């Protein structure tokens, strides 16, 4: 089993990489104190999702495999927009609060 797992690459391998990448991104997004660090975690998660979608597009039985690639193209587009807005938000928060630390942005906390 192990030799087979190492010697030929199938859908499980790509999905495993995608899942591990997603979980690492989740860990970063949930645990980092810096807003820009959190954004980096979110980008990693989006990448993991892209990888998983492309894996299904390549390996699954389907009459329209191009749908997976189309989905990935849209996710890349939206990720670019999201990054631009998130970084503008980080800059504007920094200008008002002198910090981008998500722990210290707590005006609503009484």
């Amino acid at each position, binding site marked *: 089993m192990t030799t087979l797992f*190492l010697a030929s690459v199938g859908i499980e391998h790509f999905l495993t990489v995608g899942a591990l*990448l997603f979980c*690492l991104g989740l860990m970063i997004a949930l645990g980092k104190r810096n807003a820009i660090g959190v954004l980096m975690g979110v980008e*990693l998660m989006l990448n993991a999702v892209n*990888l998983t979608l492309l894996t299904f*597009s390549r390996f699954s039985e389907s009459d329209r495999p191009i749908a997976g690639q189309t989905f990935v193209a849209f996710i890349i*587009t939206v990720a670019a927009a*999201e990054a631009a807005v998130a970084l503008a938000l980080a800059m504007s928060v920094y200008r008002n609060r002198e910090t981008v630390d998500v722990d210290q942005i707590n005006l609503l906390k009484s």
Partner: protein
Amino acid sequence: MEGSGPVIAFWMLAAVTLVAAGGVLVSRNLLHAVLFLILAFIGVAGHFVLLSAEFLAMAQVIIYVGAISVLVLFAILLTPRASRDNGETKAFPFGALLAIALAAVFLFVINDTDWRTVSESPGLAPEALGEALLTTWVLPFEIASVLLTAALVGSIMLARTAEEEAEDALA
């Protein structure tokens, strides 16, 4: 996927991607974290090539490495002092626990499911993607362009200072 070439490439790319993602997690300097992030993006692009999606792999490198990483670098340099440190919050152990639990579930599902797979690549050329984007998915395509414009205008508005706005009002 058979043959020694793709298999070796897969294991190397997987190692590079996951180690780089781990580097984003553990590095204390935010600049180092961004450089690791870029490495992870390039590794994912390599996976795309293995999955015979060359167009998306190149788009991944152009957009993620050439644009988004550069934006992140800009944000780091424009928020001095505050953003050099890449430490964790107090909630990090809980987040890590959740992520590990999720990873366990994912791995179980991946190994337990009987995937109905095809061994041959469907052989999708970039032309097929372009045709799909402009026929079946033309509405989301247009909406995406509107979204990009909205994001552009919105981020310019967010990033402008009050002084710049006053200057523009006078001009």
